[in-house]
């Protein structure tokens, strides 16, 4: 009984302002307001689910893991793209929380956006390792050997492999806002992730983004890096790729190959 009273005392209320639109039914855009109880550990996703469970079941949201791993619950919260499951109400320090769909992506319904374009850009950069090692069946030695990679080699791309494809960087990018052909920070950072991987041997991956609407259209606003919930720095990846393309940075893979050839020659 005492505990229950204490819990009720701790509970405060917040106004949750939710963007509403149904593109299939062509309804007018508007905001609905809900008074939602919260505690210091309540996340925006918890509050939205409270609305959905007890106030208005028609509110559309996309979510899954509730622990910032799946990247499904991305939305604009108080004007900034964030993951709803990773944003605590108490940390926002406002009496009203405005939830809107991610910008730069078409709205399907309420807070749910269409990620088709985003994923197409991601697929276009060939986000997988391309290597001939171990492909040839006749070469049993190659087939069974491991892909050697030193910790230093891993460090070159590791942070970029933490991307969960939540689309926050894409929605925060001002270039994507005006140029829909621009691949966006996520795709470009993933391109760098595979380009910097010493196991990858793809030859024309950089050509994919060396286009009128490619990597050179990045204005280096840096908003992509600021909104990333996983601490990835897409702006850094883009700048590193550019420096490779301009010939300012050394190509680590070519260097590694040279060292490998030199070592093999010395061993012979």
């Amino acid at each position: 009984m005492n505990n229950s009273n204490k819990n009720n005392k701790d509970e405060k209320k917040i106004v949750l302002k939710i963007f509403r639109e149904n593109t299939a039914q062509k309804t007018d855009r508007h905001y609905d307001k809900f008074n939602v109880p919260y505690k210091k550990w309540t996340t925006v996703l918890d509050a939205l689910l409270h609305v959905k469970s007890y106030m208005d079941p028609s509110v559309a949201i996309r979510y899954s893991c509730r622990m910032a791993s799946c990247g499904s619950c991305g939305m604009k919260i108080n004007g900034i793209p964030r993951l709803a499951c990773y944003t605590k109400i108490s940390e926002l320090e406002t009496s009203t929380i405005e939830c809107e769909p991610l910008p730069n992506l078409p709205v399907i319904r309420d807070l749910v956006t269409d990620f088709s374009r985003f994923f197409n850009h991601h697929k276009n950069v060939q986000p997988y390792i391309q290597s001939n090692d171990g492909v040839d069946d006749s070469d049993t030695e190659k087939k069974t050997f491991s892909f050697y990679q030193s910790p230093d080699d891993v460090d070159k791309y590791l942070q970029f492999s933490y991307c969960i494809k939540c689309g926050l960087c894409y929605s925060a990018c001002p270039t994507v806002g005006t140029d829909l052909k621009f691949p966006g920070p996520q795709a470009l950072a993933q391109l760098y992730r595979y380009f910097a991987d010493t196991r990858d041997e793809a030859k024309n991956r950089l050509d994919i983004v060396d286009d009128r609407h490619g990597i050179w259209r990045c204005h280096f606003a840096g908003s992509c890096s600021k909104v990333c919930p996983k601490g990835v720095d897409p702006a850094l990846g883009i700048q590193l790729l550019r420096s490779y393309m301009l010939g300012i940075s050394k190509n680590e893979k070519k260097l590694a190959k040279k060292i490998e050839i030199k070592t093999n020659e010395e061993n012979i």
Partner: protein
Amino acid sequence: MERHRMLKESQIMKIHYITGIAAIFVVAVHILMRLIVPFGSSLEYDYIISNYKNIFYVFILESILVLISIHGFNGIRIILLELRQNNAWENMITIMTISATIALIAYGTRTIILANGL
């Protein structure tokens, strides 16, 4: 379908950066040349004509003309490319900016040659 282009975007951007950096140096010389005499005198007709007769200064002026034209019009091309995304618009913008660059360099060079009295 992959289209053939004369230059890759990375090559164009290399030219863009090189012309931009080079322009800083030649424009700096150009501004310094204004400061070696009183500013008012530096804009007098005779002084300007004498500048055009100085072959070193003519080289500086021509460099400024070429570098700024290429850098500036490519900058305009980049800005305009973002406005619309279709091949007709992109090709039109590219052709227009290249034409404008050539026209401006040609007209500026003509002025330098006439003033020099070659």
